[in-house]
């Protein structure tokens, strides 16, 4: 059996190949493959990694920590390069998303750094005055009326006329009897939609009703009405500046995107056809 194997032509072929190969490697004096890639983590790179660490931890890493960080960086670098070789970045939604997000941030970068003067901000403030108007606020007192409303309302009104303490009248409720000045959103948040609008219109200082809330019918006395005001520019300069900057960033982004887009010829499909197929 063994001998017959030795007589196989294929076996001879392998033996001859092996011999040739070992001969060749003995005489071959060409240097090892020149394209063996290297990863050099320079002092600068390590400094940069250390500064990244510092940004998170507010201190420099220890030697041991930096060692681990550099090792981990190398590991990441190797995987990234191998992944790029394999084209794993191609058609990857995460990579694409990330890249386009980075470009987007770059295109607005200037606005964050750009300085502006008060004249510009003031005119922005004037143009957008509505956004800076404070909300109107009301303070009021309320009595929740027991069912049936008609009867209890006249009883409560009679008690009020007799000088009774209003906080003790009507149906007992966990709703506040006295409401300090709060804006529409807070009034409606506590009593239900539309409560602010009904009360705001009442004659101040007089018990009126019935007023409808999410809990039932109330007698309400409007105690105070503070209209919304436009604060002076100086008071909210910081806020105006933030808004202006944000606005500017958006402008820059679309402006610069258009510039980039203009460098391309873009061919679009007929969308309606795509969907009808």
């Amino acid at each position, binding site marked *: 059996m063994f001998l017959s194997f030795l007589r196989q032509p294929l076996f001879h072929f392998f033996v001859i190949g092996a011999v040739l190969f070992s001969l060749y490697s003995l005489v071959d004096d060409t240097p090892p493959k020149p394209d063996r890639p290297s990863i050099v983590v320079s002092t*600068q*790179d390590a*400094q*940069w*990694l250390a*500064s*990244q*660490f510092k*940004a*998170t*931890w*507010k*201190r420099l890493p220890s030697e041991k920590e930096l060692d681990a*960080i*550099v090792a*981990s*960086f190398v*590991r*990441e670098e190797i*995987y*990234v390069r191998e992944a*790029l070789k394999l084209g794993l970045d191609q058609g*990857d*939604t995460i*990579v694409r*998303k*990330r890249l386009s*997000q*980075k470009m987007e*941030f*770059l*295109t607005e*970068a*200037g606005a*964050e*750094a*750009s*300085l502006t003067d008060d004249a510009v901000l003031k005119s922005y403030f004037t143009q957008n005055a509505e956004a800076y108007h404070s909300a109107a606020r009301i303070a009021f007192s309320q009595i929740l009326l027991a069912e049936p409303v008609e009867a209890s309302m006249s009883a409560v009104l009679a008690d009020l006329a007799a000088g009774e*303490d209003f*906080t003790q009248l009507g149906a*007992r*409720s*966990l*709703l*506040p*009897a*006295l409401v300090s000045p709060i804006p529409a*959103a807070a009034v409606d948040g*506590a009593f*239900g*939609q539309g409560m602010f609008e009904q009360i705001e219109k009442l004659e101040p200082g007089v018990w009126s009703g019935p007023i409808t809330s*999410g809990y*039932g019918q109330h007698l309400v006395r409007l105690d105070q009405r503070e209209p919304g005001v436009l604060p002076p520019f100086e008071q909210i300069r910081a*806020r105006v500046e*933030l808004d202006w*900057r*944000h606005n500017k960033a958006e402008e*820059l982004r679309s402006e*610069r995107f258009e510039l*980039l887009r203009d460098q391309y010829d873009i061919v679009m499909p007929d969308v309606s056809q795509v969907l009808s197929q």
Partner: protein
Amino acid sequence: MSLQHLGSIYPGKAYSPYAKRSFPSNLYWGETHLHTGLSLDAGLFGNTTGPDTAYRLARGEEITTSTGQPLKLSRPLDFLVVADHSDLMGIATDIQNGAPNILADPKGKEWAEGFAKGGEDAAKAAFDLIGNFSQGTVPEDLVEAYSPGSPIYDGVWEKIIDAAERFNEPHRFTAFIGYEWTSVPKGFNLHRNVVLRDGGPRARQVIPLTTQAPLGTTDPLDLYQWLEDYEANTGGQALAIAHNGNLSNGWMFPVEGTYAGGVVDENYVELRAKWEPLYEVTQIKGDGETHPTVSPDDEFADYGTWDVANLDITELKTPEMLPREYAREALKNGLMLEKKLGTNPYKFGMIGATDSHTSLPTAEEENFFGKSTSVEPSKSRVSHPFVKSALGAIEGDTLLASGYQGIWATENTRAALFDAMERKETYATTGSRMAVRFFGGWEFDEVDLRSRQLAFVGYEKGVPMGGDLTKAPDGKAPTFLTYALRDPIGANLDRVQIVEGWMDADGNLQEKVHDVVWSGDREPDADGKLPPVGNTVDIEAANWTNTIGASELISVWTDPDFDAAESAFYYVRVLEIPTPRWVLYDQLRLGAELPEGIELIHQERAYTSPIWYSPS
């Protein structure tokens, strides 16, 4: 008003009921866990909106969602934390900071200097940089640094800070600066949201902690160190809030070893207690109060239960994992650990949040925009699995339209709300905005219920939710004053319960749910079980009526089996009458076909922060 009447409002104080009143009298609504398109996973799911959309919607404006649908909240929120994932978020542009690798390149140096000068120079530098990018003439080493996989991040953190600064309007709307530290080793959810009390100047001094090597870490102890450093270096304040223990496969509330390989020792319990005053007990990915296996005697325990597996369904759930996943059991284990190690690591208050990845903090059934952009309202969202692997699936219909956080505070500012969170004067709801007060003391009695200003009595005679009772006076048992007022546009209330947990003399952990006040004239049966409140839900019309239940419920309750030598906690659970789940609104408005056997109605609820009793 005559002076003799004042006694009923506020005995012994000023004429004006508002003077001398420093206690937190206002209720604010919001949430601390919202993702925008800046979170990479949110972006991948198609979220094209950022923090602006989130804030505008939260403060009451109508916006357009990523899927092009108009959306407005039923009522504005008072506060919001945009908590985007810190991983793959990043650093203010290295160019602006003049990072070494940028400065090493002549062109990079030119740009960095331009940015440093600011103004037009900065704009020019940015433009030149973009020009070079688009022409492919950026120096090669820089291109490499900005290629995929590079550790150079971009200005996301800056963006988040800027947006919060822009929308934070003291006394009107609070925009907190925060982020999510998304630790998820092997798919075990150990996530924490970090909330800063401070504004931009302090936030800009730090970079969020990440979880990916080389700079990140998945060990919560490292997060505590980051928080410690933040406070020490900036003079600011921060806290962390964990969530979704139900997807941690037993690692959220460890009692012996931690997943990171540590042990639950004195160091661990002290740090956890210090940095995690709150727990996010309910959100879209399930409710985390308790589990029917852990609380078999609690007939309402099986609400929003997600117990299939870990976060990515790579390891199925087993029953022995459950006790270390749920809030109630953790509160109990906390008593045991306090006895053993001197500190209770799980002395947390309760909050709800959405964890929505749509930039849309929607937690109301009739206005629910889902967990991610892929499940914004559509005819089919209810019947598609939300997560699926070879091992199992989490079905689309089980997404919970939950939750929000109520905060009792003095005013709507970052400082006041944050401080209220620190002292745990907060509670969770599954989305409706019921007002709930909870006070504990030794002297509350039925007479207090006649007061028309219960909060005055509550603060005078006791401590609010999140507070502590110690050293019971001789022969006294703790008394609890509770009140609940339904959401002004929501459903009536079924009942108010006090959930009690304690460690008995033998060191065994016990729990009991007490019905303390309920609507109507129902009587408990021989076993003490209260009959159900009934059901008015019209399935076809996705509607209900407030003809059952009560608008408000108040009670004073005394612990009947109190033992002054045993440590205990008490928290309130409020149940609404049955109402339609979001799936019925999908059926009504979109004609969605609902799979067989799914939950159509539910009882929304609130969980308050506990009040703890300790013997010494």
